[in-house]
Every structure is written in structure tokens, then in C-alpha cells.
């Protein structure tokens, strides 16, 4: 994607707002996101593809239509630019898809109605489905959704936009274990050097000089906080959730 494409939210905004959100997502206990239990989705969909079409991956909870639309939306919320890859490359939509089968399951109906309403609004106001609009018009649609000016939503469109943006940030800057922040692109964008169980004086100096190289490690790459622990915590929370 070229650098000159308009963006709905500036990089500076994302970075400013993401600092805390990203840190919170990183620090969240494994059970906080039930999607951790879901297996990673890396297999291309077993469906006919034209030779020119990029391979499509299966989603677990969203329909193909919803997933395609969500991918396009997150790409506009955090587009790739000269600073690095954006939310599509971070697989933020895949994070959301997985989480909708777990910790974010309560948001599944909001996605079903919200995504359908957004596409209807794009068609009624701009004459084309969201996917078929140029980037500038997609941004214009999203701004109207953000400001609550878009019609056809259950409640204010701004509420759905807030949900989308919050989950996109999680998928962009959370621990890659949960399915987003692929290849640590979100942390690299923030300049976050990675989770460390020990920081030496030399590390501290390098960090302050912005010379500490990222270690590209998930929290679950450490034995003290591993996937087995995450699964255990998840099941414990599930028991509690269904126990009363």
C-alpha cells in the first residue's frame, strides 16, 4: 500500500492511544481471552481459487462475507505506511474472529448486525458495497460510522465503531499468542522491545538509548507463563463461568 493513502486515524493517534492498550493486552492473564484455547488457523481454505487470487484463510466464527469486510475495515483503521505494516498484516481480523469464539463471544451478535449495517450504509450512501469503494470513500464511511452519523445501525453507529476500534487495537498490539500482532509487527511499530523476565543494567542503558533490540517473544515463550498455564487458567475461568 502506498504512503499517500488517506487514513481515518493517524499513526500518531494510534501510537499515542495504543501505548496503554497494548501494554494492557500484553499483561493480561491468559484466561482473559478465551480465544487462547482455539487452535491457530493457518490452513488455507480448501476452495477453488483463481490463479491470480491470493489464498484465503478460513475463519472460525465469522462468515466469509463478514471476514472479508472486517479485513477491509481494519486495514483502513491501521493502514500500512512508511512506519510499517498495518492491521491487516498484523492479522487483527483473525484475532477478532478467534476471540469471538471465546472471551469476546458476547460481541458476536454486535458484529453480525454491525457489519451488515455498515455495508448497507455504504451502499445506500455511496452507491457501492464497502469493499468496492476506493480507500478515500471507505474512510469517509468509517468516519460517519465513528461520529454516529451513519444510519441503519441498532443504536448509534458510534457504539459499533468503538467496539471495532478497541478490538482492532487488541489484535494489533496484544500478545501474538492470541492470534494478532503477527510477527510482532504491532510491538515493532510501538518500539516495544518485548517481554523480558530479567533486565540487566546494559539492557536498561540500551533501552534508554532506543538501541535495545526487540526479542520477539510472547509471554508464553517463557516457562513461568506458558501455554499450559494459559489453558489451565482458561478452564478454571470457564468452570467458574458455568458454575452458577
Amino acid at each position, binding site marked *: 500500500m502506498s504512503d*499517500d493513502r*488517506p*487514513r481515518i486515524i*493517524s499513526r500518531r493517534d494510534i501510537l499515542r492511544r495504543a501505548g496503554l492498550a497494548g501494554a494492557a493486552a500484553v499483561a493480561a492473564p491468559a484466561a482473559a481471552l478465551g480465544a487462547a484455547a482455539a487452535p491457530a488457523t493457518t490452513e488455507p481454505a480448501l476452495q477453488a481459487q483463481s490463479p491470480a487470487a491470493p489464498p484465503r484463510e478460513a475463519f472460525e466464527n465469522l462468515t466469509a462475507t463478514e471476514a472479508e469486510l472486517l479485513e477491509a475495515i481494519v486495514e483502513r483503521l491501521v493502514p500500512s505506511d512508511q512506519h510499517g505494516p498495518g492491521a491487516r498484516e498484523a492479522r487483527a481480523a483473525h484475532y477478532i474472529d478467534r476471540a469471538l469464539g471465546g472471551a469476546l463471544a458476547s460481541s458476536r451478535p454486535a458484529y453480525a448486525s454491525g457489519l451488515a449495517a455498515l455495508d448497507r450504509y455504504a451502499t*445506500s*450512501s*455511496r452507491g457501492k458495497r464497502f469493499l468496492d469503494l476506493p480507500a*478515500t*470513500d471507505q*474512510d*469517509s464511511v468509517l*468516519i*460517519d460510522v465513528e*461520529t*454516529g*452519523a*451513519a*444510519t441503519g445501525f441498532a443504536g448509534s453507529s458510534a457504539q459499533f465503531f468503538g467496539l471495532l476500534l478497541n478490538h482492532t487495537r487488541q489484535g494489533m498490539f496484544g500478545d501474538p499468542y492470541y492470534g494478532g500482532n503477527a510477527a510482532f509487527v504491532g510491538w515493532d511499530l510501538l518500539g516495544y522491545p518485548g517481554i523480558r523476565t530479567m533486565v540487566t543494567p546494559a539492557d536498561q542503558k540500551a533501552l534508554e538509548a532506543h538501541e535495545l533490540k526487540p526479542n520477539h517473544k510472547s509471554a508464553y515463550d517463557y516457562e513461568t507463563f506458558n501455554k499450559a498455564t494459559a489453558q489451565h487458567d482458561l478452564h478454571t475461568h470457564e468452570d467458574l463461568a458455568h458454575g452458577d
Partner: protein
Amino acid sequence: MTSRAGICLAGLMFAAQALSFEQVTAQETSQTITVTSPTVKEGQPVPRQHTPDGRNDSPALTWSGVPSAARSLMVFCEDPDVGNPPPFVHWVVYNIPATAKGLPEALPIDPAAPLPSELAGAMQGTNGFRRPIYRGPAPPPGKPHSYHFVVYALDSIVPVKPNTPALTRAELLDATKGHIVGRGELVAIYERK
């Protein structure tokens, strides 16, 4: 519906606040500017393409009667029927060259995109949605609101500090006190069912 009727519909409180704003600007205004548009007509509904029910593009405006003392112009689109305090601001453009005869339709919504060359030096200010772009009328269903496309002529250029947010209508009115040498407006309405 006329703009006056629209203000009345909005309630006495809003009307009173809008009136106080008119009084403030009238103190400084020395010459009336005539504002027209190829699409927006006085007292008529704002065309759909300038609202979020359509493409939400900014309308083209033209003006005449700019005083010879003018060095720059600024344009607001404001709804005196809402806002805390009123008016709610939909659009702000400032430091428009005094030689400009109007604004073209559909100014860019990307803040990084340049404005047309005939507007060199002009900037879009921060609107009520906290964005430096045009966002058209989207009143809550119930009754029509009035939308004032206001053009000011200034005998100065608004100082712009680098790396600071685009100015708001309130900041601009404050910064231009004593420098307004002309004013005109085009008033249309919009209603959502």
C-alpha cells in the same frame, strides 16, 4: 422553511444563544459578502450529497463583495440549533486567499492531502467532531435544523504554529477579533425522518 423559522423550531434557548453570536459578529462586520452555491440554496434542504445520507462531500461555495481591505477569508458551516454551547460546527476553513472567489466541491478528507492550488495557504480547521474536515448535516430525527455557511473577510492572516492542531471556530473568532472586515452567509436546512 426559512432560516428564521428553523431557529424558532429549535427552541428559545438555542435561538437566544445564536442571537448573541450574531450580535458579537455584527459588532465587527463592516461589509456584507454575498454567499452562493451551485448546489446549496437559501432556505432549501441541503442536497443529500453534502450529508452523510449521501457522499458527505463539502459543497462548492462562491462569494462576492469581499472588501478590498481583505487579506484572507475564513468559512464556517455551523448549526445554531445544537451544540454545547451552540453552534455545532461542521466545517472550518481559514487563511483562504482573499483573491479566491469560492471553494470547490469535495475538499479532501485526508488532512495530509493538499488543497487546490487556488487556495494556497488555506487550512481546514477542527470541526465539532474534532476533525479537520467537512462533515455534513446529520440532525436527529424530529425537526429540521438550519445550517449556516458563513464567510468572513479578514484584514489579516491567521498565524499558524507548526505542529499544532488545526484551529477551531472558537479559537479563530478569538484570534480574529478586530480583524473582521466583511461577513456573509448562506442558510439552508436539513431534516432526517
